[in-house]
């Protein structure tokens, strides 16, 4: 098996297949990153996060990054290229989709239903929760009663408590955050010590990332990870079977990796790009693209932040960044609101260090002159934020294409992203920003600042090789297998049919594990090129 990409979906598949004795080779364009490199332990960390450790590949411009033309997109796609992929920099806010998220067309008449249900995915959610070391509190009524998270919840802190009490008064839903961050020792990993720099890499290794949770176990079972390896195309031979992939190293040397099965785990931009780059005489519009859906229906979760400024002081630079508490009060559709679908809110400290208080990356403005210090002092250690991910309905014109001029460092065509936010999403965010403002005012905020449709917010890449039962309208089946190429699998966020309104990594992991189990079950009947 060859896996393209050593992020979390590749890690889930690689670990499971290696456990079952498959020969696994993973090709990753990035490198192993040592935790000692992570900037959170250095005084200059807030400078480094704006360049070398930015989630925007166009800002980082490292050798392992490929450029993305985002000039036709309202949101910048974000990612990290390394063993561990974007889980190195993610917040680890670990939410499942709800049952209704799999039945959007049935319930709300928009988008499409998924070819599987919450119930079908639930056992895989449970298993990946354990593998990642998820901390949380059982019994959240926003979900069906299921298995308890493997670890107790992380502390919600005084800040979480203040907003939780406000929601109790409002009689609005809240729940302690569920995070893929250890609250207690788990599988040789140490628990969170509240560095507060989750999104620049966890110095403690307490935040789950595939370089810690999956690849070491895969390698112990014989998997091989080749870094600095950029895959250039998937090759297809007789009987429309994939025969392997070609890849180039940093020096430009080209190699061929033969494989019985090819697994794409390069995120919803990288995977779609590779399928388009793999066009050939028999498939001129890209590999596995007889439906014309490759690259289409990109979803990125338009994001809003509502910040409350409080008189009380909180140590907002400390703690897990992902989620102290969440609210799904307004998650499900209500026709009276003038839009369909909803959003989950995650509460996090909002100011990071003092540089971010002076130069807010999200809500708030820079202030100069005699008021500068008053402004910074009133914000630093005094702000709490709701982060709001609104459901992003699929649109065929939101898509990845190959750029006709822009090239990466290996000479490959860069992806061009076209992405427009729908009017439904704009109404949705307007509504949620207003409700979240009420929440923070009830909690005691004296000032509210908000930003919506933040440009640098495309962390959640979904939907460019959607799954489905109908080969005419989807790229892969419900187990990630390409309709057109039966030994080619897609296992990353490209699979998503709709986006839900929650952070997607939990679902990406569960889907990847389900795909891996299908590969294992089918090992006897899987046709291969050999």
């Amino acid at each position, binding site marked *: 098996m060859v896996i393209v990409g050593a992020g979390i979906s590749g890690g889930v598949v690689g670990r499971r297949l290696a456990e079952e004795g498959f020969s696994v080779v993973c090709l990753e364009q990035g490198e192993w990153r040592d935790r000692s490199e992570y900037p*959170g*332990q250095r*005084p200059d960390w*807030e*400078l*480094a996060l*704006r*360049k070398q450790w930015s989630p925007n590949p166009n800002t980082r411009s490292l050798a392992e990054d490929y450029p993305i033309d985002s000039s036709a997109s309202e949101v910048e796609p974000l990612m990290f290229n390394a063993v561990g992929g974007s889980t190195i920099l993610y917040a680890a806010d670990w939410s499942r989709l709800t*049952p*209704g998220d*799999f*039945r959007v067309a*049935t319930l709300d008449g928009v988008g499409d239903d998924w070819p599987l*249900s*919450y119930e079908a995915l639930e056992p895989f959610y449970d298993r990946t929760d354990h593998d990642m070391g998820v*901390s949380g*509190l059982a019994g959240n*009524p*926003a*979900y*069906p009663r299921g298995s308890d998270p493997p670890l*107790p*919840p*992380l*502390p919600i802190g005084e800040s979480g*408590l203040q907003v*939780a*009490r406000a*929601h*109790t008064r409002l*009689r609005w*839903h*809240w*729940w302690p955050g569920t995070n893929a961050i250890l*609250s207690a020792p788990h599988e040789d990993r140490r628990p*969170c*010590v*509240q*560095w*507060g720099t989750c999104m620049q890499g966890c110095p*403690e290794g307490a935040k789950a990332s595939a370089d810690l949770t999956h690849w070491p176990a895969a390698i112990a079972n014989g998997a091989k990870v080749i870094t600095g390896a950029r895959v250039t195309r998937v090759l297809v031979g007789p009987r429309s079977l994939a025969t392997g992939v070609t890849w180039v190293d940093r020096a430009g040397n080209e190699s061929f990796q033969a494989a019985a099965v090819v697994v794409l785990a390069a995120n919803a931009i990288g995977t779609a790009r590779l399928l388009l780059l793999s066009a050939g005489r028999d498939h001129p519009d890209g590999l596995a693209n007889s439906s014309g859906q490759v690259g289409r229906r990109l979803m990125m979760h338009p994001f809003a932040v509502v910040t409350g400024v409080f008189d009380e002081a909180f140590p907002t*630079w*400390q703690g897990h960044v992902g989620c102290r508490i969440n609210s*799904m*009060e307004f998650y*499900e*559709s209500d026709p009276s609101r003038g839009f369909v679908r909803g959003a989950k809110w995650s509460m996090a400290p909002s100011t990071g*260090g*003092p*540089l971010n208080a*002076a*130069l807010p990356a999200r809500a708030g403005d*820079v202030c*100069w*002159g005699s008021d*500068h*210090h008053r402004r910074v*002092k009133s914000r*630093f*250690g005094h702000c709490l934020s709701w982060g709001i991910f609104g459901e992003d309905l699929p649109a065929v014109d939101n898509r990845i294409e190959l750029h006709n001029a822009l090239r990466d460092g290996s000479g490959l065509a860069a992806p061009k992203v076209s992405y427009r936010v729908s009017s439904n999403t704009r109404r949705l965010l307007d509504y949620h920003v207003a409700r979240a403002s009420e929440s923070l005012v009830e909690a005691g905020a004296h000032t509210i600042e908000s930003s919506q449709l933040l440009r640098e917010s495309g962390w959640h890449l979904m939907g460019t090789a959607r799954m489905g039962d109908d080969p005419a309208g989807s790229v892969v089946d419900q187990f990630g297998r390409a309709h057109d190429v039966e030994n080619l699998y897609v296992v990353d966020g490209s699979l998503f049919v709709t986006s839900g309104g929650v952070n997607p990594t939990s679902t990406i992991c569960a889907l990847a594990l389900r795909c891996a189990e299908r590969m294992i079950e089918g090992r006897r009947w899987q046709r291969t090129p050999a």
Partner: protein
Amino acid sequence: MIPSTSRARLADIADELIPAAEGMPSASQVGVAQQQLEVVFASRPDLVEPLQRVLAVSFGGSAVEFLEALAQTDPPGHEALVLTILGGYYTSEHVAGLLGYPGQGATVVVPDVYPWYVDEGLLDVVLERGPIYRPTPVEGNEDAPRPG
């Protein structure tokens, strides 16, 4: 790397943007154009070239007007100037101390298996309401919605 004349100009601009006030020092008092400049460049060598460029620009207005003009004409230069000044100022240990910022650090936490806020009843309202997710047909029994 940055000549003394440019450092003097940087100090002038920085002090106009971050003057001494509210018990806090001005930008130049903590060395934004001197030792803190080296801190910034060590972290962000990519800022050197655009900073040199903007400090060579003649401009007759105020520092704020200069920033506004740069934002229109030279966004990378604008970013370099802002980050150099703010980054140099807020990586100063003296400034951090005045703000009560100890820097990022490790704090051991002991999670509650059964958190005290549950005992306090803070989740009672949420739990008493029951499930809030929308029911969907259960596989194998399409007519039977899950409890909602």
